[in-house]
């Protein structure tokens, strides 16, 4: 990770309503706060409950002004879904790190299109009604530092398929200077008491994943 004493670090979380995007960005923000950084976060979630895209931006450093990230200055993209990850690629810095959950959620627009119908396409360059099945290769083409995480599988082995967000955070934690006890303290305070154990378990599985 870059020298955070001088430069603000920018994180973009992207997913679909219901995936726990905002909880993940909240936990990262609190961890940065506990580690004595200035931190700001901005969410756009007006209609996320209706299956729309959700975007959350987190910035931390010595002193942060804007809650939103400048063009091409995203350092870390945490993608909860392949299509939503692709949608954000234009906002990334050249050497950005991408952590992608290996999950596809098909938007209704591809179902309501008239035949000929194809759920998946090769290029994803030509047809707005085709879900780019080779999404991760497209990501890799532009950004070498991209990791595909088996989020749902790991979340299920933590005992709850809703803990994908903690799996991804765990993976991200490898690149951040916060101690494990800082993360776990924040997780404990952020999730319902009955789910603390599986959330921490998911975080640890994500951290160790490769």
């Amino acid at each position, binding site marked *: 990770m870059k020298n955070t004493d001088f430069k603000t670090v920018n994180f973009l979380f992207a997913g*679909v309503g219901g995936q726990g995007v905002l909880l993940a960005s*909240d936990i990262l*923000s*609190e961890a940065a*706060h506990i580690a004595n950084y*200035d*931190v*700001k*976060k*901005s*969410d*756009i*979630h*007006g*209609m*996320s*409950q*209706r*299956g*729309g*895209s959700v975007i959350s931006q987190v910035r931390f450093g010595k002193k*942060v*002004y*804007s*809650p*939103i990230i*400048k*063009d*091409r200055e995203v350092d870390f993209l945490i993608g909860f879904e392949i*299509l*939503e990850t*692709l*949608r954000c*690629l*234009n*906002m990334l810095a050249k050497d950005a790190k991408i952590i992608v959950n290996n999950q596809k959620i*098909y*938007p*209704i*627009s*591809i*179902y*309501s299109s008239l*035949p*000929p*119908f*194809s*759920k998946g396409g090769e290029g*994803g*360059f*030509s*047809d*707005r*009604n*085709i*879900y*780019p099945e080779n999404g991760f290769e*497209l990501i890799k083409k532009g950004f070498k530092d991209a990791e595909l995480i088996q989020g749902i599988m790991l979340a299920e082995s933590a005992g709850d398929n809703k803990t994908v967000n903690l799996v991804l955070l765990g993976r991200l934690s490898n690149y951040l200077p916060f101690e494990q006890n800082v993360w776990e303290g924040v997780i404990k305070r952020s999730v319902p008491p009955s789910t603390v154990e599986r959330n921490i378990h998911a975080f640890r599985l994500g951290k160790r994943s490769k």
Partner: protein
Amino acid sequence: MKEFLSGNEAIAKAAYDAGVQFAAGYPGTPSTEILENIAKRYIDVYAEWSPNEKVALEAASGASMAGARALASMKHVGLNLAADPLMTLSYTGVNGGLVIVTADDPGIHSSQNEQDNRHYARFAKIPLLEPSDSQEAYDLTKLAFEISERFDTPVILRTTTRISHSKSLVSIKKTAKRAVKKTAIPNNIEKFVMIPSYARERHRIIETRLKRLQNFSDKFPYNRHENKKGKIGIITSGIAYQYVKEVCRDIPVLKLSMTYPLPVNLIKRFAKGFKKVYVVEELDPFLENEIKALGINVIGKEKLPSFGELNPDIIEGALIGKRKRIRKNKLMLPVRTPIMCAGCPYLGIFYTLKKLGLFVAGDIGCYTLAALSPYNAIDSTLCMGAGICQAFGMEKVLKEEERKKLVAVIGDSTFLHSGITGLMDIVYNKGITTVIILDNSTTAMTGRQDHPSSGFTLKGEETKEVNIAEICRVIGVERVRHINPFNLSEIENIILEEINQKMPSVIISKSPCVLLKHKSRVHRQPSLTVDLSACNGCMACLKIGCPALERVEKDNLSLVTINTMLCNGCRLCVDLCRIGAISS
């Protein structure tokens, strides 16, 4: 210790710490969480969802008149409705501090327009505060109550989506225990009864008050000059301040937090020090025009857009003089538009309205989504409550045959907010318009808030349910019909019957939102499955627009399956399947 709070959370906390005793509002993005937080975290404050914003402000002014500190919160367009009490509350002034939060939505993330509500402060001649982060949202909310009482005026606190929904650190000084004001029945008719003779006197007082407020604004420490050295100076407020600092943290800045009345002398002194002065503000040239009226030459909207949100890149482009090209995504990607939920009781209604080819005057709520694909069934949407009136206005000028081809559609919360008067217009003025009330027992679009017919208060207490059908009857609607929104033939038959009547009629579809908080009221059935060996890929079921229906390819055939994680067994698709391939 600092706390990491959203602007809305900071406002709620500040209101509590300032001793607010009464808080009211109507849900609206991005303001909703202010009242939700007050109700959830500060239980000794009286907090309510009012039927609409006008009611909220009027009730808050009553609490203020009795001596309590009171808050009314709403989204920008909500203040249009509350503008009536606002304009004259400026005349009466307050007793306990009265603060009105207006949360504007530049960029139109979730609204019907992006009006700049700062104009209301100048229009009503009352003070305006604009926070630029959560810390200022906290500080300025507390100060707003003090300013309100010291100058005997309501105060507007104006946020935007980026202030209300962004989070940042807030340090909260340990102060004395929250103190609430003593309340009593007021006795001051010259102040509180706005008849012409008293109102004329109050207007004189307002003009003096404005002068005093301008002096106060000149000395207000949250209006501050940062960084002295440079050729260019920037005057800015709200979130734009943060973007300016992000782009160039050492540039001289006059950061304004009280933006009406403006600190005229401070601005004059600042402007003298620089060759060029820019005004950087989101939406309208509100500061710019006021400053130009002082005879000061500033650069503003000739370089910056008057629409949409600002961001650091736009400001950098304007200051450097070269527009930076924002990188676009070159991939052609499927859009992910917001849609109605699987099993939503609105789906069958909009399927039928589209099938019948009717003109549908819509309104504000989840059902506004029916304007988009795959529903394509709404033809107009203006503002809360407008749909009924627009349908009626059309009816009065259309030819007789065409009058039968239109309906108005409105949700339960919106009907109670401002639909009743429109219905009264139809009855009183001998109309025949058919109104469909989509009653899902909640204010769904903003995140399922309660309302007068939902049976619960903002604090979650059980309460009386206003009976919508009885309201319609008592107004004089003779034909009030109920439909089961999951029975397509019933929906179609009843709509056809009602649009052919020569009198007003109301069709009520009562079925709870599938996301309802009070879950015991939602009836879920076992999820359905498609027999893929029977499905012939006719796609008739997809016309319902349910997100649980997914297309699959099997043996080079395009077929449909049901996502059992989403399906709640409403069986609308079963009705549409001509070959009976769908079953539970």
